[in-house]
């Protein structure tokens, strides 16, 4: 008579299900960290698409930056990317610690002028930052892609 050894079918099934569940959980948590949670604005439009609708003017003169929101998308903040002669980049936020910067950013028709240190930069790019919300209703900022940046002459 052949001796039957090994796991019983019930234990094997339980093990199989447990392994699958554990692998699924691992993959889920790994993917959750990899894929960004969608940040939306207005009526649920992805904030990356809203960047297309942003319209603003930016100029730099005598150590001051001048900004004007000419579109219909509120701009929460601006970042300025400074390019040095060596090719190195540094980024600063506009209006930080300045009481003149509006609390909610530049809404429709909003304007701002303030001091901005250009340092030894040879080129400067102004990048809009928008405020959206996640699916869990958490407010989150989103810096628009570099293609939406505007170069300002120094």
């Amino acid at each position, binding site marked *: 008579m052949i001796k039957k050894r090994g796991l019983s*079918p019930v234990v094997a099934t339980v093990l199989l299900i447990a392994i699958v569940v554990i692998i699924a959980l691992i993959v889920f948590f790994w993917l959750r960290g990899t*894929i960004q949670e*969608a940040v*939306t604005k*207005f*009526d*649920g*439009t*992805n904030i*990356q*698409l809203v960047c*297309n*609708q942003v*319209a603003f*003017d*930016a*100029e730099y*003169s005598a150590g001051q930056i*001048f*900004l*004007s929101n*000419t*579109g*219909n998308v509120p701009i929460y903040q601006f970042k300025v990317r400074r390019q040095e002669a060596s090719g190195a980049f540094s980024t600063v936020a506009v209006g930080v610690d300045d009481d003149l910067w509006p609390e909610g950013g530049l*809404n*429709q*028709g*909003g*304007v*701002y*002028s303030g001091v901005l240190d250009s340092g030894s930069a040879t080129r400067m790019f102004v990048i809009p930052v928008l405020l959206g919300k996640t699916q869990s209703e958490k407010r989150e900022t989103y810096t628009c892609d570099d293609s939406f940046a505007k170069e300002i002459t120094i």
Partner: protein
Amino acid sequence: MESKKGVSEVVGYVLLITFGIVLAVLVYGYLRTYIPSEEISCPDGVSLFVQDYSCGANSINITIKNNGKFNVEGYFIHATRTPDQPIATLDLSKSFNRVLSDDGFNTTGVVYFHIDTSSLVPNEEIFHSFDLDSVIYSLEIIPARFQQSENSLRFVSCGEARIREVISCEGFGSEES
């Protein structure tokens, strides 16, 4: 007799369909946000025109005409404090003088043409006055209008119809110039 073990065919189908539906819902929920919504913008024919201006001792009076094809309800108005300022950043809407003006009121950066927010219709003109605390060199005006968008009325800034008017108020701080 052949032993039948494992998940039955029906249960297999049910599981397969359930997984499919769950996955589809998850993917739909994520991709839904990438559907572009209608962009709000003003029609091409929106246009305002500074017909005339005059400077008082501490004020500026402007006559604005709607020379476009569409009704306009209000505008954003900014001024420059220096002749070489590239963008006007002095918000004049805060110093709108309701008493000296024909009609209108100001709120949150906007000046409305009429107190009841009714429109400045094509070819209509209106006189508005603003108090000044310093000399200004130019004005920038962006028309704004109410526009229907997916069952709601939205206030839209017409940035592409922006006008810039160079101002010469040499008599600032003295009598009428």
